[in-house]
């Protein structure tokens, strides 16, 4: 090795971070937003702000869901019922319709073919016709499936980026030789020094989180990234593996030709709750309802244990007898994966933990953004020293442009999605896709503008615009039929009030950043002594 270990790690840190940094920033931002997936969805359906559905016993709610599904989705391949929770008080029923005549029955159903209904758990009636929107699910899917491409490609791309992130974190720890000496150090308004301090602080103070979220993110998709083990033991039938892993029925079992009425779901739910010492049921999956081989799988409600590998029971759908799941012992490997998965998605978190996860996610966004910016901040004086004409090379110009489009552009596009959600006419066909097109359209315009004029005024413009759009979300909410801040706070609707307040806070931060970038506050780069 020509250079020392630390120098080569510094090189690795720089390039593994820079090359994928713009995708990582999006993954971090959208993933952080996903902690409040249910709350974002609720905000994006102002028709549901008027009144929270009443709490009712689970047995009553599941009976109403079964009634609705039998009326509207008889003959489906599968039904899914999600019981009401504190975060989402509605009863969700969805179904996968039977494949059309002549279609390959083994073909995986497309998501847009799914039917769904949001019900009042007390009456079973559909809750006020809410506008069609992907809601918070959009950010959730975006952060590992990307968009406008097959989910498979998206997951491979995000996986490669996450692996680079892991490399960047570990090599960054080696590179940063003063972790403890600089633990609390942040020196503002000192040019390059400040960027390095901010990068170090956002990375070190949330280091356990960054390591955890990157590694467990890879674990959530590990059977796709490292399929050999499963292929060796379950050749040609991965569905059987998932059935064994999750304890549910195999997904590709064919429907029996004979019809048979589905047994009432209420008694199965009561038996499941009894076996879990009174803990509520979360999700129910009915496979081949109305057929002789129907099965019903009930999963414990999330929000208690850290593990994602939740206890579940499977019943025969016709006789209502328990088939499997009671007292099943899991091995150490399954339990480890379950906890890692659970840590990543954080569904066990109460409001305090959720807020802390969100804050750590924001620190992650700041770490990636400051890292990207620092490359440009370090490179510019080097180039200006060599070149007399004051121009910079193509690489630096490209990074400047991508930084603008990737960071400021995304922070502008995210609130545009919320504005589109409220301003597009309700009820048009393909409305959810139109909202998403607005998001990507705004982002594309910002990116093109950023690449064309990668300079400080463009940063001010985009950050200022994004900040204003974020900060005005409470006004937009109150003006377009949602529960405004005064109302939601008075009624104790914390999900809606919290969204407005977070929007206000993020907007204030972005506006402050735009203000600080003003011509008067320009910081002179310290060329002397910056060789460290």
């Amino acid at each position, binding site marked *: 090795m020509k250079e020392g270990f630390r120098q080569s790690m510094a090189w690795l840190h720089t390039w593994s971070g820079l090359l994928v940094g713009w995708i990582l920033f999006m993954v971090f931002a959208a993933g952080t937003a996903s902690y409040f997936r249910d709350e974002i969805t609720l905000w994006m359906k102002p028709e549901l702000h008027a009144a929270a559905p009443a709490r009712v016993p689970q047995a009553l709610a599941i009976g109403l869901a079964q009634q609705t599904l039998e009326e509207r989705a008889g003959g489906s391949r599968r039904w899914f019922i999600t019981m009401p929770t504190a975060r989402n008080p509605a009863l969700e029923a969805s179904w996968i319709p039977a494949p059309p005549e002549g279609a390959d029955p083994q073909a995986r159903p497309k998501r847009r073919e799914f039917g769904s209904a949001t019900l009042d758990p007390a009456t079973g009636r559909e809750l006020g016709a809410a506008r069609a929107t992907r809601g918070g699910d959009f950010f959730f899917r975006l952060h590992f499936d990307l968009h406008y491409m097959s989910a498979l490609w998206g997951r491979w791309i995000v996986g490669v980026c996450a692996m680079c992130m892991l490399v960047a974190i570990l090599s960054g720890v080696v590179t940063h030789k003063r972790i403890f000496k600089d633990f609390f150090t942040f020196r503002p308004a000192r040019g390059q020094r400040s960027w390095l301090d901010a990068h170090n602080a956002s990375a070190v103070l949330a280091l356990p989180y960054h390591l955890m979220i990157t590694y467990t993110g890879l674990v959530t998709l590990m059977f796709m990234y490292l399929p050999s083990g499963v292929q060796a033991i379950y050749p040609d039938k991965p569905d059987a593996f998932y059935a064994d892993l999750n304890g549910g029925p195999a997904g590709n079992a064919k429907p029996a030709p004979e019809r048979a009425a589905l047994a009432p779901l209420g008694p199965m739910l009561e038996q499941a709750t009894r076996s879990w010492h009174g803990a509520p049921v979360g999700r129910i999956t009915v496979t081949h309802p109305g057929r002789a081989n129907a099965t019903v799988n009930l999963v414990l409600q999330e929000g208690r244990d850290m593990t994602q590998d939740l206890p579940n029971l499977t019943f025969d759908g016709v006789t209502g007898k328990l088939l499997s799941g009671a007292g099943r012992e899991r091995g150490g490997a399954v339990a480890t994966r379950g906890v890692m998965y659970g840590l990543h998605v954080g569904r066990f978190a109460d409001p305090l*933990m959720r807020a*802390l996860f969100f*804050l750590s996610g924001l620190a992650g966004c700041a770490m990636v953004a400051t890292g990207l910016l620092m490359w440009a901040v370090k490179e510019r004086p080097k180039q200006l020293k060599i070149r007399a004409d004051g121009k910079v090379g193509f690489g630096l110009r490209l990074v400047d442009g991508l930084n603008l489009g990737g960071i400021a552009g995304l922070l502008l596009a995210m609130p545009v999605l919320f504005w589109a959600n409220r301003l597009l006419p309700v009820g048009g066909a393909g409305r959810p896709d139109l909202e998403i097109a607005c998001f990507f359209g705004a982002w594309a315009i910002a990116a093109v503008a950023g690449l064309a004029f990668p300079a400080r005024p463009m940063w001010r413009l985009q950050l200022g615009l994004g900040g204003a759009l974020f900060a005005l979300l409470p006004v937009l909410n109150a003006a377009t039929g949602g529960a405004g801040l005064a109302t939601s706070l008075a009624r104790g609707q914390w999900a809606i009030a919290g969204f407005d307040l977070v929007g206000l806070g993020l907007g204030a931060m972005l506006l402050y950043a735009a203000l600080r970038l003003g011509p008067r506050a320009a910081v002179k780069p310290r060329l002397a002594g910056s060789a460290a």
Partner: protein
Amino acid sequence: MSGLRDILLALAALGAATAGFTALSLAMERHWEQLHGRGAPLPVRARRGLRHAGTVGLLVSLASCIALRGAAQGWVAWAGVLTLAGITLVLVLGYAPRGVARLGWGAAALALLALAAVLAPALLA
């Protein structure tokens, strides 16, 4: 009542972590000078005391987190609490270094009050 106990324990965890980090930072010459002026000497005894106080603060914070969320999730909560406390302290040290003593004492007082309120019913009963 468990709602109130949870809030108090969360405040205790946050306050103790912030106070602990503040003490640990002041045990470092760079940050001691930020508070007391450039070149101000940091006595050996003060450094040792600050380090002990800081360690105690972080341990109290961990204990509060475990009391709040159990032995498994308590550690996860603690990591998040430390991040929030650290970011708060770094911002105060960066933008208002003279206020760091007030931050430390205020956070310690908050933690003590919250802990007293949690423990009092058990001690008095």
